[in-house]
């Protein structure tokens, strides 16, 4: 190693962009970026693909290697986290394309409750939905709607970040989020009506 490594404390004080610059001079620094984001990104991969933890780790590994390869194309006007999410998102989709299978979603119970709480902002909506009901609703939604719901309400990204991750205009992201929420409510209503009909 040609450069002397910094102490853990000073590494923690470094911004993502500074760590990117350091990684370009010394690859060892890249592992600190990996450590900062690995947990968040693994749960993101699982949320959008439903793969097991080990498979998610493989996808993440490939995504980080790809990130390292593209490190010079990282634009500092972008948040590193948005760039990382974008590469992970693309890597996950590409893995599924290679295997020719459709990604499924996996949400922990806590995720589902958070999702419903965020979508159901008015009182008319029954927030006490069953976990299975929410899963059914999500499975009936288009991929593009599920993607924005995950990013907005579970990953807690703002519209600009989602725009940078999905490479879509901010206005389009806003429209997608609103449509996704409406779709969620519509599917829920339809399921409830169908259930009532069956009872009668």
């Amino acid at each position, binding site marked *: 190693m040609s450069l002397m490594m910094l102490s853990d404390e000073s590494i923690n004080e470094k911004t993502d962009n500074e760590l990117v610059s350091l990684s*370009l001079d010394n*690859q*060892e620094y*890249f*592992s*600190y970026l*990996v*450590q900062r984001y*690995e947990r968040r990104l693994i749960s993101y991969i699982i949320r959008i693909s439903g793969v097991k933890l080990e498979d998610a*780790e493989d996808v*993440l*590994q490939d995504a*980080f*290697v790809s990130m*390292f*390869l*593209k*490190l*010079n*194309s990282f*634009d500092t*006007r972008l948040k590193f986290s948005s760039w990382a999410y974008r590469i992970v998102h693309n890597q996950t989709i590409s893995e599924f394309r290679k295997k020719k299978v459709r990604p499924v979603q996996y949400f922990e119970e806590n995720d589902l409750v958070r999702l419903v709480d965020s979508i159901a902002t008015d009182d008319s909506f029954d927030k006490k939905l069953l976990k299975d009901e929410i899963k059914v609703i999500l499975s009936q939604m288009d991929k593009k709607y599920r993607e924005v719901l995950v990013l907005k309400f579970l990953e807690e990204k703002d519209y600009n970040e989602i*725009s940078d991750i999905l*490479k*879509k*205009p*901010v*206005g*389009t992201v806003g429209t997608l989020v609103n449509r996704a929420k409406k779709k969620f409510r519509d599917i829920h209503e339809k399921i409830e009506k169908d259930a009532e009909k069956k009872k009668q």
Partner: protein
Amino acid sequence: MTEISDKILQTIKEKHIIPTSRFKVALKNYFWAVLAFFMVVFGSLAFSVLIFYLKNEDWELYSRAGFSKLNFTLLAIPYFWVLLSLLFIFLAYYNFRHMKFAYRRRFSVIILAYFSISLFLGSAAYFFGAGSQIEGLFFNNNIVFYGNLVQKRQEMWNRPEQGFVAGQIIFVDLNNNELQLLDPVEKVWFVDISHTRIPPFVNLNFSQRIRVIGKIISEDKIEAEMIKPFFAEPLEHCDMSDDGDDDCVLIHRPQMKENIPQLRIIN
């Protein structure tokens, strides 16, 4: 160091992975930007020919030629150049999409911006005569499909029953005040120009494309009242009664010499 970060670092080291060089990254970015720029330039030039066609159409003669306004408009649209302009706008959009942060702009905004730029630059190019020059270039080099467009225009102005004949001059006899014209269906017309005042901007030379408006006096003979260039006169301030008017100097398009596909030798 976590297990994952350790594995990733190992992979990077074992496979000797190094980040793509800054030069390559910059080259890729510039490549798309330069390509997008050229597509805008080409699109603008196509627009200039489109303007040239529409501006120089004889809108005042359509009813005499027996067209309805709608029919004439539909026939007058140079579809080849419309499609070419749209193609370049789309290609410019495609290239732009590969540039950094291009995704932040809406499709409609980008297309509208490219359309406006092409219209503006195309108008400027038309003003400097690019439309006419490019049209001549396409015609003289027998660009694929382009002959069909020109032929369509020839057919449009070739309506002998209404006294309109369009074609290329294949013989000029100024002593006898006669021209021979080959129309798009390869019929030779004898044009009597003895009662016609030839406007200073009309070039009665071999291979020139012209339109004759007059009276059919026999099966293959027309007495010309008016002779117009194949495209309506672009010289807006030209006073036709004044032979010395500088505004009437014709913008010569390159002429075909030997490369006339429909030329026949007249015995």
